[in-house]
């Protein structure tokens, strides 16, 4: 719209395509996927931050998401994302009092996956509510899972819908 964004806002996502060890059968105990989540938490955060070329402590918002191929369950995405992935993410960027926003789905090759984004220390910072779409043309195959982590160095470009701003963060409860 001709309005310059200065400095530019930058977002990066790192996506891993992994084999789903629980595909094509019903597995009650999903701890193997939880352990994979822990490993990917550090790996993908490090790669996304490196892609931005910033200090890890300069990350302002984050999000995570997973897409499960057709021989898996939505619960397999939950097992990768929720129990253990967050701790190494927070350790890498130094803080992260807020919930890491997430989404998950099942889909075929080339499915688009939206990673929701929110401020890492205060979930109500309105300028940082956002999302990033990722897609890989040949994934997920039916026995695979796409796992994605996104980080930013800023909120939306030209935010102007009011609400809590980042300079007002108290940082006590992860919300405000």
């Amino acid at each position, binding site marked *: 719209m*001709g*309005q310059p964004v200065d400095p530019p806002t930058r977002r990066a996502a790192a996506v891993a395509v992994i084999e789903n060890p629980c595909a094509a059968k019903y597995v009650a105990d999903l701890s193997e996927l939880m352990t994979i989540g822990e490993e990917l938490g550090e790996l993908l955060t490090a790669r996304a931050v490196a892609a931005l070329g910033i200090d890890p402590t300069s990350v302002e918002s984050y999000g995570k998401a997973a897409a499960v191929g057709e021989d898996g369950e*939505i*619960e397999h995405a939950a097992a990768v994302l929720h129990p253990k992935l967050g701790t190494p993410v927070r350790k890498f960027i130094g803080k992260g009092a807020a919930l890491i926003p997430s989404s998950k*789905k099942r889909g075929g090759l080339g499915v688009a996956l939206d990673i929701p984004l929110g401020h890492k220390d205060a979930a109500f910072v*309105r300028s940082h*509510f956002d*999302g990033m779409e990722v897609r890989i043309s040949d994934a997920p195959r039916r026995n695979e899972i796409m796992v994605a982590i996104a980080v930013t160095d800023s909120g939306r470009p030209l935010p*102007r819908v009011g609400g809590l701003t980042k300079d007002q963060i108290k940082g006590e409860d992860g919300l405000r």
Partner: protein
Amino acid sequence: MPKVEIRKRLISVEEILHEGGPVATVPLRRAAALAVIKNPYAGEYVEDIAPFMDDLKPLGLEMARTLVAALGGDAKCVEGYGKGAIVGSAGEIEHGALWHVPGGYGMREVLGGAKAIVASTKKVGGPGARLDVPITHINASYVRSHFDSMEVGMVDAPKADEVVLALVMTTGARVHARVGGLKASEIKGEDGLR
């Protein structure tokens, strides 16, 4: 102030009985309400857009009521929610951000004071663009069984000068939830988180 001009609406309800595991005695239902509106700010940079949030509040309320009706009419059956927006190509991502307040307001009104922040996402896209709307428990964001999402979209929207607005509600946990964490039965309900 610009008027809210609606071109079309869509309601969809998914009913999930199983994903290869035990068949649920009560199927999980996920419902989405979409409205395609004209973007009053398309095609130019407008600095002062925030007043449009108030204009959108009646639509937020109407869509929330429609969702509860689609799920059987009892607001008490709603356990998860989320919201999102897809902005057409002549608009900005910021125009999608206008939906945060009225979308959240509408659902809280109808659900009787849900405590958790409403999970959300947004994008700029063409007709047929799809959006994964994130979902969390309405009273405690950390309830792990209720982290979910629903893909929404319309084949002919958004046109360049339109915005697709979305609200989503669900009736329970993922159908085979078994990855631990905070349970809905353990909610303290004080801070919207736990």
